[in-house]
């Protein structure tokens, strides 16, 4: 602990500076915080013992430039990662959540690209308890926000994560030429950018409506209903595909590395279709997914 007037090490000065400029109550709250006081004990009126004043500004005003910029910058970044969540909440409420989040999950990465990675988790951790009249496990407005946050975060991840641009993909011709008798045992290798998402609200539909809403218009918040979505990337643009529960079950198995037969069985179990109808559906699904570049290849056991 440094006493007033004693030489201060660089380490102490930096820990103190960070504690002050990142304090949620600003410079004055920061200087008087327990952490800052432990490092450099001074009253707010004594700040100029550490920080010089300029001709125009006091030490506190100068420190305030860093303190204001810290939250303003990171809040702007979060808003740009979650533009539809911000629309859904409104700027002020969004900022309130994001401000709390930054205090619980400050950036520990060299890149801002990871700034929002725990935002959905934070919203889940701080989710208000359900109202008394609600049934246990009831889905409500907080769950909509959590799902929407997860969705937008996944869009960011797919956009800049691994992809297959410029690489060969499974084509309809290759799939058709695959021996039918070995199809059930074969494995489809998904592209690395393929992600499956399951939501408690129609998040993808809401995302589309909110993006298309004009200035001053609001997309209505939907009622809860399960929604399944596949995300992938083609030509460096993220593509969204709504899925039925059966399609989701099938693709989930394929992503887990299961043979095609096992994946189809999972789809059949929940599709409610007879074999003939399901067969026709499957053909259409695979045709679409191959055309959309969901798979890299098909392999025999």
């Amino acid at each position, binding site marked *: 602990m440094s006493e007033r007037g004693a030489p201060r090490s660089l380490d102490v000065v930096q820990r103190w500076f960070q504690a002050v400029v990142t304090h949620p109550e600003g410079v004055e709250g920061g200087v008087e915080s327990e952490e800052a006081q432990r490092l450099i004990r001074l009253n707010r009126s004594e700040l100029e013992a550490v920080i010089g004043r300029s001709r125009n500004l006091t030490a506190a005003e100068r420190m305030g430039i860093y303190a204001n910029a810290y939250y303003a*910058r990171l809040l702007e970044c979060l808003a740009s990662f979650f533009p539809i969540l911000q629309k859904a909440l409104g700027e002020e409420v969004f900022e309130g959540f994001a401000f709390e989040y930054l205090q619980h999950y400050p950036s520990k990465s060299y890149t801002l690209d990871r700034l929002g990675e725990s935002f959905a988790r934070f919203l889940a951790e701080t989710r208000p308890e359900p109202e008394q009249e609600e049934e246990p496990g009831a889905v409500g407005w907080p769950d909509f926000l959590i799902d929407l946050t997860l969705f937008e975060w996944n869009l960011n991840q797919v956009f800049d994560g691994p992809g297959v641009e410029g690489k060969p993909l499974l084509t309809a011709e290759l799939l058709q030429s695959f021996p039918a008798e070995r199809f059930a045992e074969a494995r489809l290798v998904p592209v690395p950018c393929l992600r499956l998402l399951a939501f408690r609200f129609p998040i993808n539909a809401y995302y589309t409506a909110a993006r298309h809403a004009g200035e001053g218009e609001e997309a209505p918040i939907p009622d809860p209903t399960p929604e399944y979505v596949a995300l992938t990337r083609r030509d460096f643009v993220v593509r969204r595909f709504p899925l039925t529960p059966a399609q989701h079950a099938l693709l989930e198995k394929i992503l887990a590395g299961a043979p095609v037969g096992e994946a189809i069985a999972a789809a059949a179990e929940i599709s409610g279709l007879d074999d003939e109808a399901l067969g026709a559906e499957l053909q259409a699904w695979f045709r679409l997914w191959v055309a959309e570049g969901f798979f890299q290849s098909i392999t025999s056991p």
Partner: protein
Amino acid sequence: MRLPRLGYDNLGLGVGLRSTHFDYILKNQPEVDWFEVISENFIDSQGRPRYVLQQIAERYPVVMHGVSLSIGSTDPLDFEYLGKLKRLARETNAQWISDHLCWTGILGRNTHDLLPVPFTEATLRHVVERVRTLQDFLERPFVLENPSSYITFQDSTMDEWEFITRMAEEADCGLLLDVNNVYVSSFNHDMDPDQFIRSLPHERIVQFHLAGHANYTKYIIDTHDNHVVDPVWELYRTAHQLTGGVSTLLEWDANIPPFPVVHAEVLKAKRFMGEHLEPAAADPEPVLAASGEEGGHHEAVFHPLHQILAEVE
């Protein structure tokens, strides 16, 4: 005798690569001398940003400019991050790698700001040792930039230019002289920007930065959101004369205009390279009302790390 620019090339007049200009650059292949890229935007990218950079690096000289090195921090150097820098530099054949004389966080945190260090003997020893370690690791020219700052430490025992000079000499590294930052910091700390520039070791300066800023009357914020103002151009003229001319780069990070406007801005530098050329451009310094004052507005914030946003169908 040391060579000008430490012997590195003068790349000419370049522009900071920003994602809003990706399509324009790929389509039009503008006649730009070189590009500077924000390292952190690309080192992890496996999508379009990395692809675009590969295309650009095939046609133009590229320099990597980082914002998260945190050379002044007492946290350990992050060798995973440095390894990624080194790989990207190899891939893009980066002419050199730069970052700022600052720290960005401590105790594992990153404020994503370029925070000032106290200019003391202890800080100098700390930074010099880290720059030496870093240069050995990167095996590529490394240069450090003077950041804009808004406070001074009472513990400082030397001027910023003395610190920079001794650091560069003792660590044997190059300097990126941000002329706008000299102006901003000098205004904020009641210093003489001309003295700042004249006091530096000019043969160690391998690159200049130019940018716009926001003047709130009592202080200036380094916002990179506007044209370069006349007084900064005049400092550039001085710096050009003192160095004999070095690679010059324009940064524009907010309210970014179309690419030709940004390019035209850096081309103005030609006016200040000769003694008898035309006088300063018509970019007098606009003065903004401070936030909270009547007619004031939300204070602009410097974004050292430009974000690249997802493209979603």
